[in-house]
């Protein structure tokens, strides 16, 4: 099966019903996308499919053939929005354990792509699918707003 991951075509031997998460982690060896729940409840596996945030743990690989798949590794290199968010994440010392943060940043990237000046309510609503057990939410919110300001 051919998948377009971070702008590169990858030929991978995958069962069609395999969730994209495991194709990325175990076959493409891109481990920045995390396993947290397996049922689209926590957002740790958030990637972009054609620019839209998606939960890789419930996305069968057969459904994303021919589509542009972006992971934290790709977005870190290519997305100005992701880079602005990462700078704000650094400035605010956002992560604690860090396990959910790839997913948080990928969701935040999708949010600022759609709504460059997201309000508090829009942040709460869009980011509600991303759980952080360390509860870094307060600094996530601050960092998203800082990144938005820096991109404006």
């Amino acid at each position, binding site marked *: 099966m051919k998948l377009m991951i971070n702008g590169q075509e990858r030929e991978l031997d995958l*069962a069609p019903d*395999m*969730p994209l998460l*495991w194709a990325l*982690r*175990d*076959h493409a*060896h*891109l*481990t*920045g*996308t*995390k*396993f*947290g*729940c*397996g*049922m689209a*409840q*926590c957002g*740790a596996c958030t990637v972009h499919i054609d620019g839209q945030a998606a939960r890789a743990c419930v996305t069968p690989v057969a459904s994303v053939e021919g589509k542009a798949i972006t*992971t*934290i*590794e790709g977005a*870190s290199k290519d997305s100005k929005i992701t880079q602005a968010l*990462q700078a704000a*994440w*650094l400035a605010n*010392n*956002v*992560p*604690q*354990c*860090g*396990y*959910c*943060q*790839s997913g948080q*940043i990928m969701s935040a990237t999708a949010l600022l792509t759609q709504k460059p000046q997201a309000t508090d309510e829009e*942040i*709460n*609503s869009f*980011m*509600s699918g*991303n*759980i*952080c*057990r*360390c*509860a*870094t*939410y*307060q*600094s*996530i*919110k601050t960092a998203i707003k800082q990144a938005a300001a820096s991109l404006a």
Partner: protein
Amino acid sequence: METINLSRRHFFKVAAAVAGSLTLGVYWTASHAETAPQKPAGPGEAGSPELKQGLADPQAFIRIDPDSTVHVIVKHMEMGQGSHTGIATLIADEMDADWAQIRAENSPADASRYGNMAFGGMQGTGGSTSMANSYLQMRQAGAAAKFMLVGAAATLWNLPANEITVKAGIVSHPSGKTAKFGELAEAAQKQPVPSIEQLKLKTPEQFIYIGKPALQRVDIMGKVNGTAQFTQDVQLPDMLTAVVAHAPLFGASLASVDDTAAKAIKGVKAVVSLPNAVAVLASDFWSAKQGRDALKITWDESKAYKANSADQLASYQKMAETAGKETTKIGNPAEALASAATLVKANYSFPYLAHAAMEPLNCVVHITDKGCELWYGAQLQTIDQAKVSELLKIEPAQVNIHTLYAGGSFGRRGNPMSDYVLEAVKIAKASNLSVPIKMVWTREDDMRAGHYRPMFFHSLQAGLDKDKQLIAWQQRLVGQSIMAGTPMAMMITDGYDPVSVEGAGEPYAIPNKLVELHTPEDIPVPVQWWRSVGHTHTAYATECFMDEMAKAAGKDPVEFRRGLLKDSPRHLAVLNLAAEKAGWGSELPKGKGRGIAVVESFNSYVAEVAEVTVKEDGSFTVDKVVLAVDCGLAVNPSMVEAQMVGGVGFALSAALGEKITLKNGQVEQSNFHDYTPLRIGQMPVVEVHIVPSQENPSGVGEPGVPPLAPAVANALFAATGKRRYELPLGTKA
């Protein structure tokens, strides 16, 4: 002069003689490639003949590369609490290093060098002890490194050491000579390791990083770009992934398994049976999980625990009707209660709680002919080494643990029975395959595996005399012991588990006080410490009931507490600071309420004021939490703040919606749809005020948790007039 030029055999003697001097060790990387790897210059070993024989045993806390990168080797694992940054701060400050040249890495597992003095010398992280253990040790290590660098410069330049200074990673002399650390590292390793007496630790006014705001976390880069290495991310040649079918009930065992369908799945390599589990090993996670789900297993449930949570709680309530084991007795509580002008009674109940860290439990194991290699977010290395070596009949030192970042723990990864580590090793052993095996639990496996914060029931009575003075307090607790039956059982003295009752009725000056405990022993649901341990329930019962007694006395909750805290100045200080910053006493609009709680845990003092809004439909939000903390000297104020804010969020998560319940012995919750952590929109604004202090640092990972739930419940009372006796609170006021 007493020096630390002692052999390794004398390590523990040194520790006993000079508190904090146990592990001064500095070693240096050779600055040219042809030199063999250096044996570390531990105490007394610098310049010894062994040094040149080139043993590569990182017996140390600091390594300097030729490019001047300073590696700080941290014995306290990083699970988010900031231990790597905190320890690096201590070393960087005393070394006068530039923060940008500092890196942190996990130490190997070896209690003789990396023991935690708060754990009797065992290596491990927990109990919010990292900074308290390391504050002096790591500053000494940093100061020793600086001493040797300066000594090296003095020798090279032929100038007096006392004229040489270090600033931001540059060693310099007024004559104009300068050198970076890396340029001096090789010469420094030939310098004698200084004695403790030779080290002049900085005074607080000289600190450049300690107590200063906002150093960047040393672990941050990989955590924002996806490259940080968690257990889940370990990839090794020929590695297989194991997914496990666990017995569905506590106490059930495997009767038989039909693995025909599982073995037919592409990628499945082996199926392994354990007494209470079946593991499927495959080339990737998805194949292993498909295989696991295709197993046809018959479980023997004849000895399984089949209770319902409601019945279990009812049995606890029944137990609380009789006297338990006395754990605190002051005055004559029975008489005082009988004579009270006003008697108030209340019962509180607390469910089992799962830790539910974002990274489900996992462990990578490779059994080789030399021993056992393990890669995971190890939290109690010495216990894990002992348990694994016992299982494999090898020496503990042959259990080589590579400690990785933990994607959260909240206590769970420090399992005193090494449950998940042993399961991984048993799978590897039973498979008889000589390849690395990554055991991965799914979220459901993690949620249902037990090792919960124990269910608890508290029954309280307190009395006021005719002058509305609190004269008697009786608190009876019922709940399983965390320590009993584990290697920590040595902490059970006087016949009861101290963490079951820690904090109950404390620290209030009440002339007649009685705390009693019932410890049910026939319940096979495994229990474990959960961020702030006993305080998770004792603080709620104590602080909610204290609020109720204030009301009964007709006094303001803060005023009432002040009267009982005259001998507890640090409690009083945080109580007053939080109240002042929260505008305690000022009017709030209808539907809003404010509540307070103050708790000491892990030698730190935290008061929190919660502000809630109750809406017309009965739902409520927690809008704001104002927190005051006294944790001694705040080494990294931004780390302290992060732990306090995170502690509030973690506690609120549990207070609002978390519970593990059993139905016919089956855990009813399985994933984040029915065990519901706090989400971003529920997070209150948290304001943290740190009490300035020069006391030795104490814990911050846990102490933010205990006051939150009672502060919220007390705020709900202020808004509605209704007391809350059961957690979780749910969504309605």
